């Protein structure tokens, strides 16, 4: 595997998740990648207050309203949608629940990176609580994503909760609960622990693995590993996330452990 050398890692934190300890992730990346400096920038939209309404308009226009319809840019968003995005940018609301086109969101985030820091040698990672999906041409529908890797990479805290599938039994029971009008909170209580939930204490630990995936993408073009116990495993089920990120006895497979050692020069 060929490495592209990296000069720096910058973590942009959009905030909005109380359980996410960004400093812990920064520390972890420093441990993993040795000499590479790791910086954190909080609430990146607030770096450009004069453009906040413009960004709000862009975010409002990349919403997914129907997972079977590919989002087209250029459609005029509604006034209320722009206002909501503006309040979110300004930190005036903690509410979330809107679904965005992941690739377009990546483009909006890329505008927040200072011009001199957009090269391949700097790994820019945006951590957000916006939920992302990407369009699958073959199936003609959107699929939820935990992360979209690229320049920059985007990792979604809500994506960690919503994108990997929960146990099959959960969905079967959910159907019944919905038909009966029963509250879904009760159902979540039943399956507590078997998936990562909102404001979950385990979120920071899980996020560490996804941040490392983003760095591997920048260095090698390959963020994933086929070893189900490696933190670079591309998990599609919650139980796989929990196993790879929290429960397995080793963090990285022998091959990736070697790469990391080489990176650190240890």
């Amino acid at each position, binding site marked *: 595997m060929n490495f592209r050398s990296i000069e720096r890692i910058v973590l942009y934190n959009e905030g909005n998740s109380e359980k996410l300890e960004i400093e812990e992730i920064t520390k972890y990346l420093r441990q993993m990648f040795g000499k590479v400096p790791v910086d954190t920038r909080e609430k990146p939209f607030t770096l450009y207050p004069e453009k906040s309404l413009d960004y709000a308009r862009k975010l409002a226009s990349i*919403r997914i*309203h*129907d*997972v079977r319809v590919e989002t087209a840019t250029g*459609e*005029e968003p*509604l*006034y*209320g*949608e722009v*206002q*909501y995005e503006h*309040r979110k940018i300004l930190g005036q*609301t*903690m*509410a*979330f*629940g*809107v*679904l965005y086109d992941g690739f377009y969101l990546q483009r909006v985030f890329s505008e927040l990176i200072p011009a001199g820091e957009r090269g391949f040698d700097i790994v820019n990672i945006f951590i957000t609580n916006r*939920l992302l999906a990407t369009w699958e041409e073959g199936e003609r529908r959107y699929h939820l994503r935990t992360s979209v890797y690229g320049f920059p990479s985007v990792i979604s805290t809500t994506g960690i909760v*919503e994108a990997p599938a929960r146990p099959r039994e959960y969905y079967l029971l959910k159907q019944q609960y*919905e*038909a*009966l*009008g*029963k*509250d*879904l*909170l*009760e159902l979540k*209580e039943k399956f507590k622990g078997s998936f990562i939930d909102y404001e979950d204490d385990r979120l920071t630990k899980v996020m560490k693995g996804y941040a490392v995936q983003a760095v591997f993408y920048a260095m090698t073009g390959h963020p994933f590993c086929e070893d189900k116990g490696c933190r670079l495993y591309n998990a599609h089920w919650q139980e796989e996330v929990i196993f790879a990120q929290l429960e397995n006895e080793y963090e990285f497979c022998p091959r990736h452990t070697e790469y990391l050692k080489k990176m650190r020069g240890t």
Partner: protein
Amino acid sequence: MEKFSPVGEKDVTRAIVTEFAKQFEEYVESDCIIVGAGPSGLMAGRNLARAGKKVLIIERNNYLGGGFWIGGYLMNKVTIRKPGDRVLDELDIPYKEISDGLLVADGPHACSKLIASACDSGVKFANMTVFDDLVLRGDSRVAGVVINWTPVSALPREITCVDPVAIESKIVIDATGHDAQVVKKLEERGLIKTKGFGAMWVERSEDLIIEHTGEVHPGLLVCGMAVSTTYGLPRMGPTFGAMLLSGETVAQIALMKLK
């Protein structure tokens, strides 16, 4: 045994006609017309009237309250999530906390208290009345609604052939639930494009409904489930906290606009 006052049929009829006509004439012009007397519309009307505004609620059914009488599967227990308890306390509606943050109340009790509170605050109602169209001013600002009797709209036009009438207000609120009838009428005229229902992420829809409650077009505000249809937010299950709080929010916004 107590005796009823001797009143003739003509006196009864005259009392109904006189009082109805007097109120109707007075409310041909008001501060705010709310279309839909479900929980969000009632809550909005109540708070606006309490602030001294002249409010008329249009309701197509004979009964008020919309879906607030019953919860899911026709079971008459309604669920409300915190911070909806604030409204329940304000309306003096008894409830039980089932689990952390989840409250359940008796549907008929909750609904009748809300209706009573709206009436006590001074809201007037035009029930059995359907919203037919919008009154628009030159700059396409919404300035009232066109209404008709519900039975008229239920029959073919060839049979009924009854023209509607228009009433005016400074602000109109769409509280028609999933149908978003008022917003849809605006869409028919090409003045807005709604997003339809979002299919997913039920858990987060309550927060989003409150966040998107407000003005959608000059003169037209939207609250309750109509917000969901307008903005393509996730469809919600039978939990009413967001409806009550959305009504409260839209009243606050309307009050600012009416200043």
